[in-house]
C-alpha cells in the first residue's frame, strides 16, 4: 500500500510524521486539513525536498502526490 507523509518539526517529537495513502480519499482529506491548519493558522512554512537534501522549494498548497514535505514552525530572531 503506497503511503506518503509530511514531517512536522515538533518540540515533543522531534519529527512528527503525518501519513496518508494517496488512494484513500479520507486519509488525504485528513492530511490536507492538518496541513492547512499548520500552514494557514499556525503560519508554518512548508517545503518539499528530495531525500538527499539536494533540491527543494517552498510550497503553499497541500499536494497529496508529493512524496516528502517538511513543515517548519515560525522562527524567531534572537
Amino acid at each position, binding site marked *: 500500500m503506497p503511503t506518503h507523509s509530511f514531517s512536522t*518539526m515538533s518540540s*515533543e*517529537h*522531534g519529527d512528527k510524521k503525518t501519513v496518508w495513502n494517496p488512494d484513500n480519499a479520507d486519509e488525504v482529506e485528513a492530511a490536507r486539513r492538518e496541513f492547512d491548519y499548520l500552514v494557514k493558522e499556525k503560519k508554518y512554512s512548508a517545503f518539499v525536498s528530495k531525500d*538527499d537534501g539536494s533540491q527543494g522549494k517552498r510550497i503553499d498548497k497541500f499536494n497529496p502526490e508529493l512524496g516528502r514535505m*517538511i513543515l517548519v514552525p515560525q522562527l524567531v530572531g534572537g
Partner: protein
Amino acid sequence: MPTCTSANGVWQTWVTTSTITASTAYMSPTTSPYYNSTTTNVLTATNDTVYNHWVSTGGIAAHNYNNGNGDIYIKSLCALGESLYPHEHVNAYDHVARRPDENAHVYTWKEHLRKVQRRRIRRQSLKLLRTVLTREEWISLRTHGYFVVQGGETEVYYRIRWQHGDSMVANIDVLKLGADRAANDNWPMKSISTQLCCHLPTDYPIGDMLAAQKLMLKYEERKFLQRANCHPVSYTANIRSFRRAA
C-alpha cells in the same frame, strides 16, 4: 549493606508501605526496637534491591546511602508530607553531594524518563536533519561542526554552526567568500561580515533547529532575513564537535 536514615515520622511510612521484607523484626513500627516516632530512625536493607524499593516508595526526607564500598552519598530529598510516590518526587534527587571523582548520579524515575524522552526527540530530529542536508553538508557538520548553505535569493553563503551546548545564539555566519572557499575557510574572522540569530523556539531539539535554518535560508531567505537579528562578529571557535546522538 545499604542503610537508610529517615527523618522524623518517615520511618513508619517505610515499614508500612514497603512490600519487600527487609527484616521482619523491623517491619512493624510497633514491635521494632528501632522505631521511634520522634527521633531519626535507621534501617539496614538486606540488599540494594530492598534499599532501592524503599527509596522509590518511601516519603524520605533525608538519608545517607552507604553502598558498601565506603562511598557515602548524601542526598536531599523531598520534604516530609509530600507524596509517597516516585512520579511526584520531582525534586527528590536535585541536590547530590558528590565526591570529586564520583560520576554516579541518581535520578528519580521522572527525571530518568524525561532524559530518555529528550534523547529520543533529539535522535528523531537528527534523522530529519540528515534527510534535509546534502551528503557534503552532513559530512561537513560531522567533521567540522558546521555546514555552508547558499542563500536562495542573494546567493550569499551562510555558515550554520552547531555550537557548544546546542546554543543557537548567533550561530549563522554571513560569509564574504565565494563557493570555493566558503566550505573550507578555517575561520578567518575577516571572512565573516556579520552573524545572524534566528531560530525555532528554544524547546525544539537541535536537529530541527539546524534543519529549519537550512530550509529557510535556502528557500525562504528573504523572510528569514527579515526576522533575523544581526550581531557584531565575535570570533570564537564555538563549535560543538559532532557526536552521534546517544
